[in-house]
């Protein structure tokens, strides 16, 4: 039986890798998750046959608890995952990721408790290598757990807090040092009090790290916690001698780290910078009054678009919030019928996650060959009659190119200002998510169409139909 289980774990690990590989191309992506899912199913099923489980004196109780846990946790996740709106996906990923980190941490907790019952340190009970990885996994998993929950709460609008203590970074650094000391202590003497304080402080550190992170940086943090959970799972896999956990965990740890880095680079920020400086928390440079915003009515905007040669649409988080993607697609189809060339321009960090806009547009039925990445479309703006910005802000902010004092300075942007006309659909006159004023909105060739994205899109459709 042991051999069958080990072989199945290996097969599961291979299925995960094949699945992830397939998920990295749009053509095979949909089958990729099925492969990975099969791996998970196989690994879970064979685990029920593990000899140590069958021989345990509490077998019946433990088995019932396992089934109850799977039913409750899986049931909750199934229902919430099916119900959640596409726009709220990022926070659900954060939530499920946090649960994984918590699971890895609790597995470590069980091992540490056993060490404590045996009366010695983790090293005496587990051996040096296992003890180190168990403690590290516990630390990382716990931070990922509480941090992800905070990320979920912030993205879900349940927590608006962005500052806890003065000198937060110094407090965090001190806390990290204290945690390190406790880690060393657990290695030599794992008593119950030390274990409890260790986990308590790790929970607090996760909260402290995440609370000050600016909203625009949330994707980077979620991706980082995803990578951390992967690492924690890999480490605990070593503790339990489970090949599937080691391989899957480390693959996710490394893939997640690279993804985090790519996201940070797309925003021209380092991962360290995301932690230590929140965008928009510093004083904004509002030295000169940028002038007046000029309004346009939907009817005029509709006419402008209907007679355009080329129109480029730049969606942002506002489109997601307003659920306007279907209306926008309807508008685009009308424009295409009239002979307008329409392209969608997606900034790497538009929305709350890379690819967020692509998913929403795909949901609405936009074929992905109409969707262009930043590098591929930026040259086209100068040939475009109209650039329609819907619910995007920071990603088209020209001060990222010109104003060295701007917190956005250096971030690559979509050059919407190069189009002959820019129409901006926006709910109000306020600054963007980063809290930085956007000079594009005051430019001579820009007209503002105030209103909710969905309503504005409906009015544009109406305007084009009436022609």
């Amino acid at each position: 039986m042991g051999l069958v289980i080990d072989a199945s774990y290996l097969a599961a690990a291979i299925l995960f890798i094949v699945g992830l590989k397939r998920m990295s191309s749009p053509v095979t992506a949909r089958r990729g998750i099925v492969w990975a899912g099969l791996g998970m199913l196989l690994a879970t099923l064979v685990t029920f046959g593990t000899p140590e489980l069958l021989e345990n004196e509490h077998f019946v109780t433990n088995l019932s608890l396992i089934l109850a846990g799977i039913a409750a946790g899986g049931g909750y996740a199934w229902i919430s995952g099916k119900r959640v709106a596409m726009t709220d996906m990022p926070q659900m990923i954060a939530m499920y990721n946090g649960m994984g980190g918590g699971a890895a941490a609790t597995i470590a907790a069980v091992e540490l408790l056993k060490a404590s019952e045996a009366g010695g340190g983790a090293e005496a009970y587990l051996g040096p290598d296992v003890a180190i990885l168990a403690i590290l996994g516990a630390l990382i998993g716990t931070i990922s757990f509480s941090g992800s929950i905070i990320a979920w709460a912030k993205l879900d609008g349940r927590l608006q807090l962005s500052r806890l203590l003065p000198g937060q970074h110094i407090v965090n650094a001190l806390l990290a040092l204290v945690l390190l000391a406790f880690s060393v202590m657990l290695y030599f003497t794992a008593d119950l009090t030390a274990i409890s304080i260790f986990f308590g402080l790790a929970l607090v550190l996760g909260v402290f790290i995440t609370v000050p992170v600016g909203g625009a940086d949330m994707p980077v943090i979620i991706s980082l916690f995803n990578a951390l959970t992967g690492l924690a799972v890999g480490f605990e896999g070593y503790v339990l001698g489970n090949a599937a956990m080691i391989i899957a965990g480390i693959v996710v740890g490394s893939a997640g780290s690279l993804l985090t880095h790519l996201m940070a680079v797309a925003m021209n920020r380092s991962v360290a910078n995301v932690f230590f400086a929140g965008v928009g928390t510093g004083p904004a440079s509002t030295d000169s009054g940028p002038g007046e915003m000029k309004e346009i009515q939907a009817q005029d905007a509709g006419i402008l678009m209907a007679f355009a040669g080329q129109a480029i649409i730049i969606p942002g988080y506002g489109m997601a919030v307003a659920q306007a993607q279907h209306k926008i697609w309807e508008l685009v189809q009308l424009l295409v019928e009239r002979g307008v060339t329409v392209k969608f321009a997606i900034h790497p960090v538009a929305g709350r996650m890379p690819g967020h806009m692509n998913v929403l547009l795909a949901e609405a039925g936009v074929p992905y060959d109409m969707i262009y990445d930043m590098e591929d479309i930026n040259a086209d703006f100068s040939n475009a009659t109209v650039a329609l910005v819907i619910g995007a802000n920071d990603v088209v902010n020209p001060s990222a190119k010109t104003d060295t004092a701007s917190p956005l300075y250096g971030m690559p942007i979509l050059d919407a200002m190069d189009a002959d006309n820019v129409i901006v659909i926006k709910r109000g006159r306020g600054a963007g998510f980063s809290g930085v004023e956007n000079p594009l909105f005051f430019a001579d060739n820009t007209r503002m169409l105030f209103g909710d994205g969905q309503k504005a899109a409906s009015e544009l459709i109406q305007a084009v139909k009436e022609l």
Partner: protein
Amino acid sequence: MIEGLAAIYIFLLAGFTGYEIIARVPVILHTPLMSGSNFVHGIVLVGAMYALGIAETTTEQVIGFFAVLLAAGNAVGGYVVTERMLEMFKSSNKPRESAGG
């Protein structure tokens, strides 16, 4: 049990594999891929089941139960969300060879 050098080999190779998977991915798939990798570390469920399965005391059972509860949430939630996202990657035209890469 996997020990010593063998474990280091596994860690290294798995690390390279993960890097290789992400290295050439179009931006369009970043979110689904993050979600997919989030599902994959749901394999922690297997470890949680083991931890609870070998529990001897009530404390271990309680903690183990939470481990299974959380891990099942990770695995199932990760799958459902990823599948829903990928479900949308249907092109109205025939899929072209590359997408916006």
